[in-house]
């Protein structure tokens, strides 16, 4: 049950992060597209919220999110190639 929830939350991180990545590459060659910049900021907001929700309920995605409860939980969770 917890795993299903983590899968769903991770999918949201993946989607927001992909949104951000694709806009980043587009903006590299279209830096004057103000609409795309706004969309990028929206994607960043979405990514941060999804990442926070995942890390609160599942495990740290980045080392900087680890150790909040005084244990070294960076080792926890599914490291690639483990399936989520």
């Amino acid at each position: 049950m917890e795993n299903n929830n983590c899968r769903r939350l991770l999918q949201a991180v993946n989607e927001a992060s992909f949104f951000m990545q694709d806009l980043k590459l587009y903006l590299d060659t279209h830096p004057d597209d103000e609409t795309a910049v706004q969309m990028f900021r929206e994607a960043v907001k979405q990514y941060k919220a999804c990442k926070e929700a995942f890390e609160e309920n599942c495990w740290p995605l980045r080392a900087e999110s680890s150790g909040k409860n005084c244990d070294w939980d960076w080792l926890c969770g599914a490291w690639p190639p483990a399936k989520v």
Partner: protein
Amino acid sequence: MFVFEKRTQIPVRIANKNPRLAGIILSQYGGPDGELAASLRYLSQRFTMPDNMGIALLTDIGTEELAHLEIVGSVVSQLTSGEGAKSFDRYGKGDYYVDHSNAVYPASAAGVPFTAAYIQSKGDPIADLMEDLAAEQKARATYDNILRLSDDPDVNNVMKFLREREIVHFQRFGELLDAYQSKIK
């Protein structure tokens, strides 16, 4: 610098084992048009791009290629994890097993170890970008060939995503090349 995030860019969930198919997909890990070659090519060429637009684009695409290397490695690993010598042999991969057992080793499907001779870093932005455009098409064509050889839907979903990214990268490199060529004119 690079920051690691503990997830693959898209989920990799392969239900079936298949060392033969793993050996084919391995080419996109350490083969001539694979993701390791792609990432090293762009992350090396970026140092001699003439402006920040070029440096940024090659850095950002080169970084995404590293994420793709991780995806391809995960597919190969999931297709072979837990399989023993007999299974590798039955699938015609006894020759891979004898040297690497269940490990993921950067080599082509034909077993040629990865070499930097697959890439060039010329110090000439036009020459480098022409190579990058060709590299994206060769990688796309390799994914097409994998899709012709594989009938595993879990694998094919991942391959289709990676194939699509090659097309997006080709588009972006083309825009950068256009920008440089119109500056010359």
